[in-house]
C-alpha cells in the first residue's frame, strides 16, 4: 500500500476530514476548535472547510460538551466531542462514567451511543499537575467505554476512523508529545480494527508492553539493547478496551519475561491490570516476576528536575528489562 509521511497531528486531522466527508451525521464540538483548530491543531482548518454547523466551539463547559454529545448521539448523530485536556474529564466525569458509559446497558440495550470523546494527555512538557495526567485507567475501569491510545501517526488515523464509525462511546486519547512525530501513513481508506495489538518490534528475550508515548520510549530502549544482543519485543495494545489479551499473552508465553510500561501513576494503573492478566494467563511460562514501569505516586510536578524524576524515562524501562533478564 502506498504511504506518505506526515506528523501524527496531520493524521488525526485527515481522519476527521475523511469521516466528516463520509457521513453528514458526524460533527465536532469542543473548546477552541474553530479559530485555534484546538490547541494542538488536530482540528485545524476543519471549521473553515466544513462550516460552523459541523465544527463549532462550545463554552468552557465540560459537562455540557459531553452530556450534549450524549443526547445528540442517542438521537441519531455521531458527535466527536473534544476535551482539550484529559484532566478536564474530571469536570465531566458524571456524564462520562454515569451517563455515557451506562445508558445502553441501563436501557436494556435500547440505545446506541456513537460518541467519540477526543482528548490528549501526558507530561514531559512542564504543564504541571492539572494538565499532565494520564487517566486511561479511569476509563478502562468503567464498563461501557472503549479506550484508544495510539502511539504513531498511522495508528492514530486508522483508529480515529474506526472510533467515529463505532456505535459505542470511545475515549480517544492522544499524547501531546506525539503530535509532531512524523510517521508513514497508508494512503486511501485506512481503518484499524479495535482489539488488535500491534507488535511494534519483534523479539525473543523479553516482552515490553507499552502504550502511547511509552511505545516510542520502549522502542528506543529496545534499539539500544539490541546492540548488546538483547532481543526485546515491544507490543502496543493500541486499544485498552477492547484489549487483545491473546496477542499480549502469546508474546509473554514466547519470551517468558514481561515489563509493562505506562506513564500514569503506578497504583491501580493499567499495568496492575495487565500484570494480573499475564499472571493468570502465562504464569507457567514466566522466567521472572512481571515488572511495572510507571510514574511515581505523586501529582505531576512542575519543575523539570522533579517532573523528570516522577515520570518514567527510558532509563527506567531499561532498568526493568535488565532486571527481568537477571532471572
Amino acid at each position, binding site marked *: 500500500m502506498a504511504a506518505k509521511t506526515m506528523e501524527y497531528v496531520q493524521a488525526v486531522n485527515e481522519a476527521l476530514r475523511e469521516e466528516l466527508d463520509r457521513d453528514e451525521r458526524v460533527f465536532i464540538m469542543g473548546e477552541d476548535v474553530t479559530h485555534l483548530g484546538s490547541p494542538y491543531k488536530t482540528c485545524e482548518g476543519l471549521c473553515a472547510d466544513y462550516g460552523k454547523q459541523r465544527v463549532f466551539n462550545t463554552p468552557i463547559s465540560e459537562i455540557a460538551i459531553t452530556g450534549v454529545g450524549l443526547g445528540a448521539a442517542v438521537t441519531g448523530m455521531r458527535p466527536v466531542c473534544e476535551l482539550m485536556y484529559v484532566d478536564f474529564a474530571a469536570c465531566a466525569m458524571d*456524564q462520562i462514567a454515569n451517563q455515557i458509559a451506562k445508558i445502553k*446497558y441501563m436501557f436494556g440495550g435500547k440505545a446506541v451511543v456513537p460518541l467519540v470523546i477526543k482528548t490528549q494527555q501526558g507530561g514531559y512538557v512542564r504543564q504541571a499537575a492539572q494538565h499532565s495526567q494520564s487517566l486511561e485507567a479511569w476509563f478502562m475501569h468503567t464498563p461501557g467505554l472503549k479506550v484508544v491510545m495510539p502511539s504513531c501517526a498511522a495508528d492514530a488515523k486508522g483508529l480515529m476512523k474506526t472510533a467515529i464509525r463505532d456505535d459505542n462511546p470511545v475515549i480517544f486519547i492522544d499524547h501531546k508529545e506525539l503530535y509532531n512525530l512524523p510517521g508513514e501513513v497508508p494512503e486511501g481508506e485506512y481503518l484499524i480494527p479495535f482489539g488488535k495489538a500491534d507488535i511494534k518490534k519483534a523479539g525473543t528475550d523479553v516482552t515490553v508492553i507499552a502504550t502511547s508515548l511509552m511505545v516510542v520510549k520502549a522502542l528506543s530502549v529496545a534499539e539500544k539493547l539490541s546492540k548488546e544482543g538483547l532481543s526485546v519485543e515491544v507490543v502496543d495494545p493500541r486499544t485498552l478496551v477492547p484489549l487483545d489479551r491473546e496477542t499480549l499473552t502469546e508474546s509473554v508465553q514466547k519470551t517468558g519475561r514481561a515489563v509493562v510500561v505506562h506513564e500514569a501513576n503506578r497504583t491501580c494503573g493499567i499495568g496492575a491490570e495487565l500484570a494480573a492478566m499475564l499472571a493468570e494467563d502465562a504464569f507457567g511460562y514466566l522466567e521472572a516476576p512481571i515488572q511495572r514501569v510507571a510514574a511515581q505516586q505523586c501529582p505531576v510536578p512542575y519543575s523539570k528536575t522533579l517532573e523528570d524524576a516522577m515520570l518514567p524515562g527510558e532509563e527506567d524501562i531499561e532498568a526493568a528489562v535488565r532486571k527481568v533478564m537477571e532471572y
Partner: protein
Amino acid sequence: MKRKKTDLLRIYEMMHRIRKFEFQALDFNAQGLVGGSIHLYIGEEAIASTVGHILRDDDYICSTHRGHGHVLGKGVASDAAMAEILGKETGSCRGRGGSMHIADRDKGVLGANGIVGGGIPCAAGAALSIRMRGTDQVSIAYFGDGAANEGAFHEAMNVAALWNLPMVFICENNLYGMTVSINESSKEHDIYKRAAGYGMPGEKADGNDVLAVYDLAEKAIDRARSGGGPSLIEFKTYRWRGHWEGDPLNYRTEKELTDWKKKDPIPRFEKVLMKDYKLTRTELDTIEQKMTEEIEAAAKFALESPYPDPSTVMDDVFTETGVK
C-alpha cells in the same frame, strides 16, 4: 383558555394511571419486591400528565429519579414500567435499569436518572440533534429544585440559550431536595428567575392546577417547536411521600402535608371538569375504574413475568459494531 374535552379527559386518565401506578409500586415496595429505593410522584401528577399530553410521540424527555410519572406520561406502557420496577425481563429496560432508570428510546424517553441533574445536558443534546436533523421535534428536561443547584443545569441552560435549542427546561419545584428544604439550599426560591441570567424566558405556574400547567407548558413547547428557542418553566408542587420510601420525614410538618393535600391536583381538576366541562361524576368514575383495572393488570403482569436469566448479565454493555 377553553380546552377540548377529549384532551382534558386524556390528561385526567393519565393522572389516575400515574397515581394508581405509584400506590401499586408503594404496595410492592412494602412487600419487599422492589430493590433499592423508589421515589414516588404522588401529588405531582398534573405536571407529567399534562406535559406528556402536549408532547408528540417523537419528542424527547430526560427525566429524574422521581420519574415514574414522566415516563408514563410520555407513553411508556404501565405494565412494562411496573415490570421494570420489579426487575423483570419484560420491563422496559429488561430489568437492567429499575425504578431510577426507566427508559424507552422508542417512546422518546431518554431515561429517568439516578444522578440529580444528570439528564439535563442529554436533553440539550437531543435538542441539538433535532436542529441538526432539521425536524420539528422538541426535547424536555425535567428536574427538581434540587437539580437547579447542580452545574449540569447551568451548563445546559447556557448552551441551550446560546444555540437557541428547541427544548423546554421544566422545573418541578416540590420544595425539598431529599431532606433539605429549599430554605436551606437557595436564597431565591423562584427557580424560573434563573432563566433571565441565561437570556431565555422563564415563567412559573401552579403545578397542581392542570389548566395552569397546560397553558404554560403549551406556550413553552410551541415556542421551542416553532424555532423560538428554549424556556425555563417552573411548577410549584409537592410530593406527598418522602424523598424515598423509608424517609423518616422528620424535616417537614404534618400540617404542611395536610395543607398540600387540600391542593390535590386530581379533585381540583375534577371540579373544573364537572363545572366548566359538564362532565358527570359517573363519567369520571368510569375513567378512574378503567385505570384501576389497567394497573391491576400491570401488577399481575409484572408479578408473573420472569426475572432475567443470569447468563445474560453481560448483554448490551456494548453495541455490536460493523467495523472489522
